[in-house]
C-alpha cells in the first residue's frame, strides 16, 4: 500500500514541494505564515482553474491554446456590460454570462476539430488568433476599469476572518473557494462519471473508442466546452482580482497553465493525468514563484527557474517510464 503511494508520480511532485517548502521556510520563515499561504492560494486560483480545464483537454488527447483568448473575450464582454449597466447586474449573472459564453466558444473549437479533422493544436492556434485579432480590431486595445462598487466588494469576501500583528485583516479568499469547488468538480467528473472515464479512454486509444461505440463528438464538445467554461469563470476572477480588463493581460498564460498540468503528470499524448497531480503541479509553480520573491531573488530569474523545474521534472518522469518499461523486458537470467 505504501509502495503503491510512493511509486506514484504525484508523490514525487509532492516530495519536491515539501523539500522546496522546507528550504524556502528556512530562509524566510514568513513563508509558513497563514497570511502568506492564503495569499499564494488567491493569486494562483486563476491558474488552478484554467489547469483543471486543461487537464481534461490533455487527457482526451487534445490541447487548447485558445482558452486565454476565450477568457479575454468573455472578460471584455462582461466588463463592457458592467460599465454600461452595472447597476442592473449582480455577481451571479456576471458569472453565468461568462460561463455560457466561454462554453459556447469552447464548443466552437470542438466542432472545428471534430468536423474538419484538424489537429487540436492547429485549430486552437487559429481560433486564438481570430479571437485576439477581432478583439483588438473592435476595442483598439483599450483598457476597461472603474467597475461598480459591488463588483469590488465581492472579491473582498473571506471565509476565515483573521487579523495580523499590524491589524491588517486577512483570510481565505472567495476566489480560492471557487477554485476548490472547481477541483472537486473536476475530480468528480474524471473519477466518478462514465463521461470522465470515456475521456480517458478516448485519450488512450481514439480508434478503439470509436469502435467501442463512444460518441466522439459529444465527448469533444464536453472537453472543449468545459475548457471554455473554465476560461469564462477565470475571466471573471481575473477581472475581480485586478479590477481592470485589458485585451492583452492573459497573453502567453496558456503555456504556464500547460506547463503546470504537465508538471503534475499529465501526458501531452493523452490518456494520462489526475486532478491531484494537476493541483500539485500548480502548487509547485506557486510555491516556487512565491519562494523566489520571499528570498529576494530578482523576478527575472523566475522564468529561468520555472524552465529548469519543468525540464527536470519532465525528464525525471520520462526516465521513470523508461526504467519501468525496461523492467518489463528483463528476463530472469538467474
Amino acid at each position, binding site marked *: 500500500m505504501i509502495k503503491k503511494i510512493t511509486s506514484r508520480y504525484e508523490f514525487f511532485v509532492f516530495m519536491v514541494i515539501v523539500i522546496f517548502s522546507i528550504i524556502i521556510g528556512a530562509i524566510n520563515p514568513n513563508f509558513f505564515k497563514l497570511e502568506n499561504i492564503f495569499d499564494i492560494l488567491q493569486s494562483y486560483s486563476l491558474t488552478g482553474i484554467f489547469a483543471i480545464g486543461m487537464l481534461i483537454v490533455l487527457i482526451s488527447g487534445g490541447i487548447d491554446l485558445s482558452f486565454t483568448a476565450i477568457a479575454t473575450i468573455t472578460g471584455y464582454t462582461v466588463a463592457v456590460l458592467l460599465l454600461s449597466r452595472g447597476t442592473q447586474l449582480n455577481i451571479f449573472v456576471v458569472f453565468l454570462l461568462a460561463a455560457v459564453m466561454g462554453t459556447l466558444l469552447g464548443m466552437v473549437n470542438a466542432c472545428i476539430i471534430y468536423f474538419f479533422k484538424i489537429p487540436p493544436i492547429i485549430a486552437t492556434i487559429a481560433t486564438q488568433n481570430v479571437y485576439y485579432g477581432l478583439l483588438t480590431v473592435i476595442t483598439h486595445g483599450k483598457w476597461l476599469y472603474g467597475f461598480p462598487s459591488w463588483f469590488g466588494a465581492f472579491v473582498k469576501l473571506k471565509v476565515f476572518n483573521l487579523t495580523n500583528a499590524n491589524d491588517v485583516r486577512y483570510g481565505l479568499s472567495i476566489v480560492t473557494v471557487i477554485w476548490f469547488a472547481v477541483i472537486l468538480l473536476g475530480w468528480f467528473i474524471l473519477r466518478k462519471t462514465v*463521461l*470522465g472515464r*470515456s475521456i480517458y479512454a478516448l485519450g488512450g*486509444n481514439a480508434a478503439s473508442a470509436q469502435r*467501442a*461505440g463512444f460518441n466522439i463528438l459529444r465527448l469533444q464538445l464536453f472537453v472543449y466546452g468545459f475548457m471554455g467554461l473554465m476560461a469564462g469563470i477565470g475571466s471573471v476572477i481575473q477581472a475581480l482580482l485586478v479590477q481592470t480588463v485589458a485585451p492583452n493581460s492573459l497573453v502567453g498564460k496558456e503555456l504556464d497553465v500547460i506547463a503546470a498540468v504537465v508538471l503534475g503528470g499529465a501526458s501531452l499524448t493523452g490518456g494520462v493525468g489526475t486532478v491531484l497531480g494537476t493541483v500539485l503541479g500548480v502548487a509547485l509553480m506557486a510555491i516556487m514563484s512565491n519562494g523566489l520573491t520571499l528570498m529576494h531573488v530578482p523576478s527575472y530569474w523566475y522564468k529561468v527557474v520555472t524552465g529548469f523545474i519543468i525540464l527536470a521534472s519532465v525528464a525525471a518522469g520520462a526516465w521513470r517510464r523508461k526504467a519501468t518499461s525496461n523492467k518489463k*523486458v*528483463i*528476463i530472469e537470467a538467474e
Partner: protein
Amino acid sequence: MADLFLKMSNVSKHYTGVTALDQVDFEIYQGEIHCLVGENGSGKSTLIKIISGNVQPDNGAQIEFEGQVLHGIHAIDAIHKGIDIIYQDLSLFPNLTVMENIALARYIAEGKRLVDWGELKEIATKAMARIDVSLPLEALVSDIPIADQQLVAICRALTRDVKLVIMDEPTASLTKKEVDSLFSVVLDMKKKGISTMFVSHKLNEVLEIADRVSVIRDGKMVGIFDPKELNDEKLTQLMTGKKLEYTPYVRGEVAQEPILEVCNLSARGLFQDISFKLFPGEILGITGLLGSGRTELALALFGVNLPDSGEIFFEGRPTHIRSIQQAIDLGIAFVPEDRLVQGLIMNQSVSKNLVVTTLDDLVDRFKLLDQRLIHDKIDRWVKDMSIKIPSVDSPVQTLSGGNQQRVVLTKWIATNPKVLILDGPTIGIDVAAKHAIHQIIRDLASTGIGIILISDEILEVCNNTNRLLVMHKGRLVKEFEMEHTTMDEIQETVDLTA
C-alpha cells in the same frame, strides 16, 4: 451437431472494379470452433466485416441467424445477435485498468452516467469467471502481457450475451504456452455454446482445436474441410493454389574462418555466457520463446545492448560494438522484429525507405544527394528484389506485408553487409510471400553473407538454416546441426523450455 448459428449463402461484394467476394457460402454452428484461413487479400476481412455488419453485401445474399432470415446485417443487428469481433490490435485502452476495459463498454451501452467502481469490478469478475481466468483487475492494460490483454478483450465480449466471437489473427503474437491457455478458454466457451471463429493467414496451431476449416482464395470459398484431413502442405496448396516445396538449406562453400565469433558474451539481465561462431554462407538459426533473450542477443551484436563481459571477434579481430553506426561500418545489418515500428517509416515512400541506410554513398562530388544515382539504384533494387508496387513513390503503409518486408530487407542488403541478422523476418506475412522471402535469404547466404535467422517458428528455422541454437532464459541450451537432426527433436527441446 447443434443448430446452425449463422448461415450465409451467395454472398458477393464488388467494389468499383474489384471483386472482394464472389458467391461465397459460409456457415457456423452453435458452439463450433471454426477456422477461416486465406492469404492476405483473399477476402477474409471483407467476409468478417459483412458478418459484423460493417460492410453490406451485394444484392442476392442470403443470411440466416438461428434459422431466421435477414436481408442484411447492420452493425447494431450484429451486436444484438451477440456477435463480437476481437481485432488483431485488440482495441483496448492501454491507460485504463483491466476492469474498466472489460466493463466500460457495457456501461456505455446501458447508458449509465455514474461509475460505480464496485459494480465495475463485479462485472469484470463475472466475465472472468465465465471462462475461468484470473487477471489483475486493478493493473493498467499497458502493464500486462499481450496474452493477458487478449483475455481482457475476450472478457469484454463476455460481459454481453455473446454467441459468436470472431478473433482476427489471435495467435500472431503469442508464445506456444499462451496459445495453449487461449485454447483452453475457447474450449470453455464452446462448452457454454459460444461459437468461435478464428481468422488467420497462418497455418498454425489454430487447426489443433478447430472443428472445421473454411479456406478462402481470391474471393471464392475453396471449401469447408475437416482439420484432420489437412496438413500444412495441403492447406498451403488450398490457400495459394500452388504447390510449395520445402527443401532444407545446404551450405555451399565451406569456409574455414568464421566471420563472426562470440565468446562467453553476457549482459546483465538480458543474456548470459553466449558463445557461437558464424561462417560465411551460413544461415544460423536462433530460436526460443519470447523473452528467451534471442532478440536481446541480436541487439548486442548490433550495438544497441552493450554486453558486460565476453568477447566478439569480427573477421578474426577482437571488436567492441558500441553503437549502431559502428555495427553498420563493420558490415552488420539488422532487420528488426517489428518492421512496422522499427524497420520502416510507414508513411514515407518506398524510395525514401530504401535509401536511408546508404545515403552517405549516394552523393555527388559536392556531397549533395545525387538524384539520378538514387533513381537508378532504386530502380535496380526494386527489380532485383521483385518488390511489387504501383510506384516507388507510394507510401510503404500501402504495401502488403510481404512487400514491406522486401523493402526492409532491400534497404539493409543495399549496405552490402557481411553479417545479416533477421529477427522474425516473416511475421505477419502470408505463405506464398514467406516462401519468396526464404528464397531471398538463401540466395543471399549463397553469396557468402553470414545470416542469423531468429524465429520462433520451428518449421521456418528447420527448413531454412543449416545450424540452430536454442535459447532459454538468456542462455544457450542446445546447438543442432540440421543435417543430423529432425524437427521433432528440436520441437521437443523447445517445448521443454516452455
